[in-house]
């Protein structure tokens, strides 16, 4: 069975690709191999009118998978290059979706990429991130933590680089966050979504070969677990074939 040979990051890309609809607009920033794979896969499988845009380049068609818009080989076959002023505009108007990983993600889907400890004297200073707006102004965003453990999945992030659902519906409304916010959190172990009432993270499916208990043991907060948790639908042959032959022929994802 193909899915057995499928690497977790490949599965993550496939799950994210499935949620992209034809005609939408989206992008990812730097250090984003998984979202890039998802977007190029979606365009090849079911969303030929999906546009990558908003982040300096429009509809690149790279020959293989690159991690970042800052790698200009990623720009191959683009239809246009844009400047930072266009990025400023797109950041205000928003896209359909955006992606974030994080050094911490909490139960409301808030993202920390800045630091651990205090702002004045952090115990750990992360890379931070340049764009804290796209996720907020876009209709929705996706979380794709590259590891699933209690250091990443924390009860409350030390610093909100990018707001998810803040501290729930009231605080989200107060902050003027009117979009959907985080829709899915796709990790190497499972797929999470957010409870529509409490806006807290909820287990949605567990990847083949993993268990609900394993997920809970690696999650540092009270994850909502429904009565029935299905296995994540495995990749189809076509999904995996297109991902490996057309999107990522050099096997960047398999090297993770």
């Amino acid at each position, binding site marked *: 069975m193909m899915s057995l040979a499928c690497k977790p990051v490949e599965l993550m890309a496939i799950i994210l690709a499935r949620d992209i609809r034809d005609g939408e607009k989206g992008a990812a920033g730097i250090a984003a191999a998984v979202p890039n794979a998802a977007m190029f896969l979606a365009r090849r499988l*079911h969303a030929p009118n999906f*546009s990558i845009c908003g982040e300096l380049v429009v509809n690149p068609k790279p020959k293989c998978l690159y991690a970042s818009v800052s790698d200009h080989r990623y720009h191959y076959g683009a239809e*246009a290059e*844009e400047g930072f002023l266009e990025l400023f*505009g797109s950041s205000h108007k928003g896209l359909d979706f955006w992606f974030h990983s994080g050094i911490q993600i909490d139960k409301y889907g808030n993202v920390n990429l800045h630091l651990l400890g205090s702002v004045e004297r952090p115990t750990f200073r992360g890379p931070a991130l340049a764009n804290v707006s796209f996720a907020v102004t876009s209709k929705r965003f996706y979380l794709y933590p590259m590891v699933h453990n209690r250091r990443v999945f924390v009860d409350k992030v030390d610093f909100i680089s990018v707001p998810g659902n803040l501290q729930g519906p*009231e605080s989200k409304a107060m902050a003027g966050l009117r979009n*959907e916010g985080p829709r899915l959190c796709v990790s190497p172990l499972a797929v999470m979504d957010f409870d529509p009432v*409490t806006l807290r993270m909820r287990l949605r499916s567990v990847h083949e070969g993993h268990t609900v208990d394993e997920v809970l043991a690696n999650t540092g907060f009270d994850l909502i677990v429904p009565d029935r948790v299905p296995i994540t*639908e495995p990749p189809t042959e076509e999904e995996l074939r297109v991902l490996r032959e057309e999107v990522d022929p050099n096997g960047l994802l398999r090297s993770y």
Partner: protein
Amino acid sequence: MGQLHTDSRQFSDTEKFGKNRERTTKIASVDEVVGLIKPGCKLGLGGALHESRPVALVREVVKRRIGDLSVYSGPVAGYDVDLLIGAGLVKETFIPAITFESHGLAPNFREAVEGGLVKAHILDVLTVVGGLMAAALGLPFFPIAALKGTDEVKYNPLIKKFTPPFGDEDIYAVQPIAPDVVLLHAAESDPFGNIRNYGAFRSVDQLLAKAGKTVIVSVDKIVSPETIMQDPYRTTIPCVYIHKVVEIPYGAHPTASPSIYSMDDDHIAEYWQAAELKRTGRNPEAFGGYLRRYVDEPESIYRYLELVGGMRKLVELEKEERQL
């Protein structure tokens, strides 16, 4: 809050999307795009003065007598706005300067404004650029700090004085300018609306495309997607801002389409004469004659091009452009 989000979460990992693997083009017919322009709308016209103006589309607006228009434009206009005014289709203009330069003042514009038929709002280029910037960037306003001492600020309907959060002098804010429909003319586009335009005023087209709600572009030529991908730096307006593309050869005539043909000074002079004869009362029928001959009667762009001098004239204008 929770409720609000329920619908958009009604998805399934295995939901099947239409297996529509062909990208859809944005190529449309003139009828289709002109149908998007409603009477009373805010209409934004690209280019400036007599360069890169979407004249063929404007002629179709005149032909269908789509009226009651609020007209925005690149910061200086002439022929096409005067034509719309002459046909009685314009309620108000938001254009800093309207002129035929060496030919003279704009006859229909003058007559209509002096006669109280058209409200010519008083504003300047910074108001236009700032207003388009605000709309293009998704900002509620754009700051302007260079308006001092001019009577313009007493009448400019789009600006407001305010105390800025930084700096020690009051400045002005302009509200967003977001036309309902923007009409542009460019040299080239691929079928998906990746636009290449040229000339001194292309930056106003870039702003209009980002500021407008519906953006329609007539192009002299549709080129292949590969042509565009070969040099993405030459794309001046990416497809994501464009709604429809119409191929209309010589669609900017009698204004210029930089890189392809120069402006047709003879035709602009012919127009000006007709409009000025009417304005001065020396020949009240002259402008109506122009309208009938060049706008209402030609059943196609090719008939129009024959009337303005045909291949001989067009080759001449292309030659002039190549010799730049």
